[in-house]
């Protein structure tokens, strides 16, 4: 049984499908990259997987001891967050919110979990700093630490390197890769196909053509070759 099994999924807005016949599975320890052009429905797919949006048809099944809200989510930054007065520690701790259940305040264990995850993302020294004063890369690490508080097994990342410079992007990719090696399953939406083929174990390509398979197989397809070349050309 896989962590996540998607069968014949159609998704879109207001009953209009923008993507249909989607089939894929995610197993423990996988590193899946979802690639595709702008507007192909990557973020919609992500939202559907997180139950923020209802699918039009098809099923998403969670298995292997994973329940639907045990997914850590790294969203794209919103406008509100850019000038939000909150300290790093407060944001990371808010990752534990689902653990509160019927309690009002965070327990000592939850605070410890937040500290551990800050340590893991190497942001412990920033814990009292204000989020809006951090650099883009540091902000992403804060949100990653928060996602880790919410989930131990699987992370969904939505365009994590958008707006970051190449060196910081590489650092962040390294960090995500480390997490994957520690056994955390990764699903990542990315524009950056060269990084996708470098780190991912599986690729889901969506758009007018849909492809799902291991990275090695993807590279052999004409679709993969075409996109890799297109990106190389555009990067000069």
């Amino acid at each position, binding site marked *: 049984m896989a962590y996540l099994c998607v069968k014949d999924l159609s998704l879109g807005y207001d009953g209009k499908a923008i993507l249909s016949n989607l089939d894929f599975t995610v197993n423990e320890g996988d590193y899946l990259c979802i690639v595709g052009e702008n507007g192909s429905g990557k973020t919609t797919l992500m*939202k559907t997987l*997180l*139950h*923020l949006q209802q699918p039009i048809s098809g099923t998403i099944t969670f298995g292997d001891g994973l329940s*639907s*809200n045990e*997914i850590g*989510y790294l*969203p794209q930054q*919103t406008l*509100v*967050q850019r000038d*939000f*007065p*909150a*300290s790093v*520690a*407060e*944001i990371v*701790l*808010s*990752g534990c*919110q*689902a653990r*509160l259940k019927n309690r*009002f*305040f*965070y327990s000592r264990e939850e605070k410890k979990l937040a500290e551990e995850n800050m340590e893991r993302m190497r942001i412990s020294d920033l814990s*009292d*700093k*204000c*989020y*809006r*004063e951090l650099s883009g890369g540091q902000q992403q690490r804060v949100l990653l630490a*928060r996602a880790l508080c*919410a989930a131990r097994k699987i992370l*969904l990342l939505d365009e994590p390197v958008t707006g970051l410079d190449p060196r910081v992007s590489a650092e962040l990719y390294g960090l995500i890769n480390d997490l994957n090696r520690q056994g955390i399953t990764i699903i990542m939406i990315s524009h950056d196909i060269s990084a996708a083929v470098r780190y991912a174990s599986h690729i889901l390509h969506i758009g007018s053509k849909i492809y799902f398979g291991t990275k090695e197989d993807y590279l052999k397809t004409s679709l993969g070759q075409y996109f890799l070349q297109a990106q190389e050309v555009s990067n000069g």
Partner: protein
Amino acid sequence: MDKLFVYLQYPFVRYALIVGVLIALCSSLLGVTLVLKRFSFIGDGLSHVAFGAMAVAGVLNLSNEMIVVLPVTVICAILLLRTGNDTKIKGDAAIAMISVGALAFGYLLMNIFSTSANVSGDVCSTLFGSTSILTLSRWEVWLCVVLSLAVAAIFILFYNRIFAVTFDENFSRAAGVNADRYNLLIAVITAVIIVLAMNLVGSLLISALVIFPALSAMRIYGSFRSVTICSAILSVVSALGGILVSIAFGTPVGSTIVAADALVFGICWLIGSLKK
């Protein structure tokens, strides 16, 4: 100074101080969330709704206006905050529409069915709260105390969840938290505070109580907890100062409090600029 102690012996002055401090405290607590959610104007919109409802209550000749005003305002708050994300009429337009509409209907009703000789005086005191805080009855004071303490208690108990939902609603939803429930909670307590605050500063100036302390505190501090605490303190200090000044110098209560809030904002802005 002596004059002040003389005044403090009057019960209506003590009532005004108690009520003023409590309302200032509550409005500043929620202000941080409302400003950050880009709902700064909701105070204004809802207070106009409350104004309209008050006019209706006046026409119906109800002895106790709260029975109409509070539920109507709560319902409008729920509708407004719900439309935040994806509706045909966007948040700011919806607020503007409801608030101006309610204001117009309220004034219209008050004029057509006027029961008192001085309609414009009545309207003016509802809009600017000129003297109503100094004429509170014992019953109104108790209602105000109970409701504000309830709002403060709810805010403290749900502090962690309100923070989480304000910072990142989608993350909360993804984690399986019922974010709608907390948005509803925020909407309801916002409405309660606004109805209470109408006595203090009148319906035109309520936004000031909600946004000034939050903005002042955000100039200085960088964590949610310190911003919340700081804005509560600033708000209470401004309200106390404003009420005392207005009693001593005979200025209108509402606008004096708001002027004090604006002054505090100026000072905080300076401190914030110097810190950088």
